[in-house]
């Protein structure tokens, strides 16, 4: 069961990376306009939010 000693931290680190990615999407306001984004994705010359 010693494998748990590094498997548990490993799983937590992976999950924290995913959480960090999600928090980044919230901070960069990617959930502010779900209505517009579903059309914007089809635009070729879409410019990202600054």
């Amino acid at each position, binding site marked *: *069961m010693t494998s*748990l000693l590094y498997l*548990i931290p490993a*799983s*937590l680190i992976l*999950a*924290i990376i*995913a*959480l960090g990615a*999600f*928090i980044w999407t*919230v*901070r960069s*306001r990617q*959930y*502010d*306009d*779900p*209505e*517009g*984004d*579903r*059309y*914007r994705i089809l*635009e070729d*010359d879409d*410019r990202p*939010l*600054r």
Partner: protein
Amino acid sequence: MTAPAPSLFLRASGDGLHSLNCTIEGITCGRCAITIESELNRLAGVASARVNATTRRLQVEIDRTVTAPEQVLAAVSDLGYGIHPFADDTSSRNSDEGNLLVPLAVAGFGTMNVMLFSVAVWAGLASDMGPDTRTLLHWASAVVAIPVVAYSASVFYLPAAKALRHGRVTMDAPISLAILATLAASLYETAQGAEHAYFDAAVSLTFFLLVGRVLDRMLRKRSSGAAENLRAMIQGRAFRIRAGNQPEEVLATELAPGDVIHVPVGELIPADAVLTARSAAIDDSAVTGESMPRTLRKGDPLMAGCRNVGPAFSAQVTAVGSETRLSSIADIAEAAETHRGRHQLLADRFSQGYAPLVIGSAMLGFAVWLLVVGASLSQATMIAVAVLVVTCPCAAGLATPAVAARAANLLLAGGVIVRDGGALERLAEVTDVVLDKTGTLTRPEFVLDPDVNAKLARRASTLAATSRHPLCRALSAAYPAQPLDGVQEFPGLGLEANGGERLGSAVFTGAGSAASPDGLAELWFRVPGGRPARFRFSQSLRPGLRNMVEGLRRRGLRPVILSGDTPNAVAAVACTAGLATWQGGCSPEDKVARLGAMTGEGRRVAMFGDGLNDAAALAGAHVSIAPASAAGAAQVAADVILLGKNLESLLDVIDIARTSRRLIAENLVFAAAYNVVSLPLALAGMLTPLVAAILMSSSSILVMLNALRLGHLRETRKASG
């Protein structure tokens, strides 16, 4: 449009750029947002343009030296959208403050990871896991759960603590108590090396409660954003004249009594004032509902919110802002609104009583198990926690917002804005519908009757094109012509060209008596030496009027027209609509009184109106509806706003409201039944906190699924009916 100059709304945003915030009318989907953006990006000097299709707002960064803000507005309105700049005091709303997504994500992260450990423990208990490994996994759960709960559950325990300090118990209190007690008990169990810990229950409870909170918040944000957009439309401008100088443009709020103002053609009067020019023609349809302009003489009072349809004039301000008559109408509206707000407090009062009840029964369960039955401290704690968790009124709390959110989204897609969920509930209870005429059943503008001498009409139109009088505009809309030079306007009488042609009232053109024989709006035109010719005008009806009236009757509702316009004009519309009950010449106060009388008879009245004269009645009605073309004050007072031109959409709103009410009732019955069954089970010690959390969250999910049926039910009924 009497909007202040757009440059007043510009804000410096660094790099020599200025940002301009606007609300946009007429966005129906994200496609519109893209169209506007790409059009603006084509303009030179536009650094970036972003349209938010959800909030219907535009933020554009421009280089003032290259592009004037007016060009931006012109570009958007050329595409056919309404655009109104507004002062951006609300940018803080976009910050992370109040954004529940991050706490939700953290709770979700915690739930999944703690579950991983818990499942391992459960599986291990059934097989051969040793106590050391089990304790290790419990500690691993604790390491994740403690920070997650401390952060995510602060959404509940911080407000709960704040309310407690003010001596109130909100529904956040039992929720916080349940989460924190579960966490504390689990820590204690883990430290003892016990078999069971309930970190999974603490974090998943936080997660599911946050899901409900986020849904509720999304609905509120959407509707409050719509209200803010409306307020942005009623920011006015004024032209102040100081010591013989040229008029200077200022915001209407900067005026003071005694100021002399200049009111150009077509502008709204920004404040209550006294006319200092010789005469003026005023369209006060927005305030009184009267569809024809009035002529005023020097010294006559002018009301803020009326429109100048004659030549430009000057006036002296007597009252501004909150002192104006317009604002006192808004005050009546507001007073009525607070009165009605009591309905909505019912839910809060329910939780005021319910929260102590929940905490009380949990404590009772704890005491009985510990002292009477003789269970261990940890066992008794777990039973108390199970009671707290299982009785969490999430299902009851979600019952209304889940359905209301679904209904609001369905309606928004159909061009209807609903301000709050309570409005739908009230709409479902309505028995009578009071309709305003001008601007509500009819379109605000006049239409020329087609049986005219086209040659004459074209000639008259060259005069008409110089005036803002509503009848002249209708004439020049039917026969577009270049405006003639040197046309003189006599307010209240008519227009005279250099050549001697006269367009105006019967008296002005020498056609005889002042009164129109058939009650229709009319203009007379006479060329020198010729006989006066008559043009008749009517107000065109909005599409779907007859169907709407029939549909209302089929649904058991009684429609009635109350209008400020002349009885003749009202009778004509009532006849076309197939309505026998109507009343003309109503003042705003009459409307409120009539509504009060109907309410006194125990009827629930829906008010459908658009003018400032309706604002008080709108606020006093059980539920109020306004078309999108309505005056700002009316829109602010209204619960429901119809964006489309077709009146039949009102029937859709009523249908959805009725279906919603049924679904809400189902949800509430289910939530109550759930609590009645689960509370005794929890008290009897038959539920662990985890099972309680699963029961609690599945009841919430069931309630949300039931809400989703709303769209489905509607489709099937449409198909069959």
